[in-house]
């Protein structure tokens, strides 16, 4: 196995498997099938693949109609155009009818890189989690993406799955990925001093930071919060009580995303010190993914610094 894979790659691969298992699975795209990897499904099941052209709103409307007629629908485009352009259709057609549509959106966050701000989505988790009944998933690596996508297709109802452009390191393998459960945070590292709750590609940054901090004697718990909704409140409350402080990290705006979701839980159940790592209410820009992560404060070193801030409080 290669040591890195983009979560969108995993999506393309698992779609081929799922297509064979579910004869009623159909896949839609909006002129980005090479980038989103739905083209992998098209190669094997061309009769169940539909390109809607550059017309995202219509694609999600049609996805609803297909779902209301008994199909399981995975409909893909970039996160900006899925969660953004088609938001109200996803809300009123898919959400309100609780249609079985899986909005599988790729190229989320700052790691879109050189395409720049118009394509860097920091709002999707916030938008999607406000829709009643919507399951919101943000896998952290290739192996967990495959497993979570399997569970998403197996469940009934609308889901938003956030996938990335850039290759990210694996820390699950096929075996350990089987332990992942939709709706349950996954503790990757036990610790008693502070809890780092990470989602998506920030999980690997969190693990790096935790190792650094361990050298200094700071014992971090790390949780992979791959499901933003329904959110695993128990694991958050337990972490707040046992470690007293929580750092959240996400490749997303700190307004409305994982950080806000965790704050909603702690504020009403077990107030504790919080520190949020993420995009800080600003647009992105063009640059390499790594340089942008550093500039906009979404690296292991930002997590490391954040933990030190929490420890001083």
């Amino acid at each position, binding site marked *: 196995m290669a040591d890195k894979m983009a979560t969108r790659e995993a999506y393309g691969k698992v779609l081929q498997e799922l297509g064979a298992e579910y004869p009623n699975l159909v896949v839609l*795209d909006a*002129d*980005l*099938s*090479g*980038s989103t990897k739905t*083209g992998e499904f098209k190669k094997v099941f061309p009769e169940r693949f539909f*390109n*809607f*052209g*550059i*017309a995202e*709103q*219509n694609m999600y409307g049609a996805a609803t109609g297909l779902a209301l007629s008994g199909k399981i629908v995975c409909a893909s485009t970039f996160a*900006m*155009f899925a969660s*953004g*352009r088609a938001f109200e259709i996803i809300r009123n057609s898919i959400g309100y009818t609780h249609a079985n549509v899986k909005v599988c959106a790729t190229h989320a966050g700052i790691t879109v*890189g*050189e*395409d*720049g*701000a*118009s*394509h860097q989505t920091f709002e999707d988790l916030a938008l999607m989690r406000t829709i009643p009944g919507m399951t919101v998933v943000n896998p952290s690596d290739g192996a967990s993406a495959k497993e979570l996508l399997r569970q998403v297709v197996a469940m009934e109802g609308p889901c938003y799955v956030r996938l990335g452009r850039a290759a990210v390191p694996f820390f699950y393998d096929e075996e350990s990925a089987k332990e992942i459960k939709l709706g349950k945070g996954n503790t990757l590292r036990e610790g008693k001093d502070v809890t780092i709750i990470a989602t998506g590609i920030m999980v690997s940054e969190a693990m790096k930071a935790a190792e650094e901090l361990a050298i200094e004697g700071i014992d971090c718990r790390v949780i992979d919060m791959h499901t933003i909704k329904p959110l695993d409140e128990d694991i958050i409350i337990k972490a707040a009580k046992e470690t007293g402080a929580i750092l959240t990290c996400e490749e997303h705006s700190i307004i409305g995303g994982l950080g806000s979701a965790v704050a909603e839980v702690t504020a009403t159940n077990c107030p504790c010190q919080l520190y949020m790592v993420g995009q800080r209410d600003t647009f992105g*820009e*063009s*640059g*390499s993914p790594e*340089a*942008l992560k550093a*500039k906009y404060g979404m690296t292991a070193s930002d997590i490391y610094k954040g933990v030190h801030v929490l420890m001083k409080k």
Partner: protein
Amino acid sequence: MDYKQFEELASKVRVDIIKSVFEAGSGHPGGSLSCADIMTALYFKEMNIDPENPLMEDRDRLVLSKGHACPAQYAALAERGYFPKEELKTLRKLGSRLQGHAKMGLVPGIEMSTGSLGQGFSVSVGMALANKLDNKEGRVYAILGDGELQEGIVWEAAMSASHYHLDNLCAVVDWNGLQIDGKNDDVMTVRPIEDKFRAFGFNVISINGHDFAEIFDAFDQARACKGQPTVIVASTHKGHGVSFMEDQAGWHGKAPNEEQAKQAVEELGGEW
């Protein structure tokens, strides 16, 4: 009229498209090359603009609705003197004024931040409406991709443009036949395009988008047309001017390597 000078300018623009996308290591050469002649015609003759005074009252404005083709716009603006050509090398790099999809307010001459397809055309409708409201002379030009026409907002914009009789608005469709996933006709056909725009109340002019005589003639006709907006359907070739990129969907969003870039510049009569 002698069109040779425009052809030479367009070749320079094309050379800079190749060089800047090569330097960036990513970007969209295909759709930049296909609209390079239209872009050259607009910036070097058709539009009433002043690089020394980019915010001049009553200036004409261009909105590149197919925002991914900004390397063509940057190259034309630099050639026209809006900013130093040297800066083209910074395309898509961290801290550059030349964003991967153009951002308004960074370099002079960019009238609107685009990148999300369809929206630029809608914005150009608002600009044209404002010019009417303020009795301003300025005309508004919007360049759209043929794949972009699949977006619903394009037709909402078209409807409003003719409803408000925006004869100061001229859309140009870069009809290169290709989008990302292949031919428009295979992905989601937008034909019959002339009839569609006509049904939406437009004055429709079809031309060869690589022929300056036809391009200038179309702009003249657009200016002469009163009471309705104009769309110029410009037949083009994606990747025009570079043999191995021509009519290839694969060159939509891919940078050439050094060897390819050198060959492309050579074919365009430029210097590496």
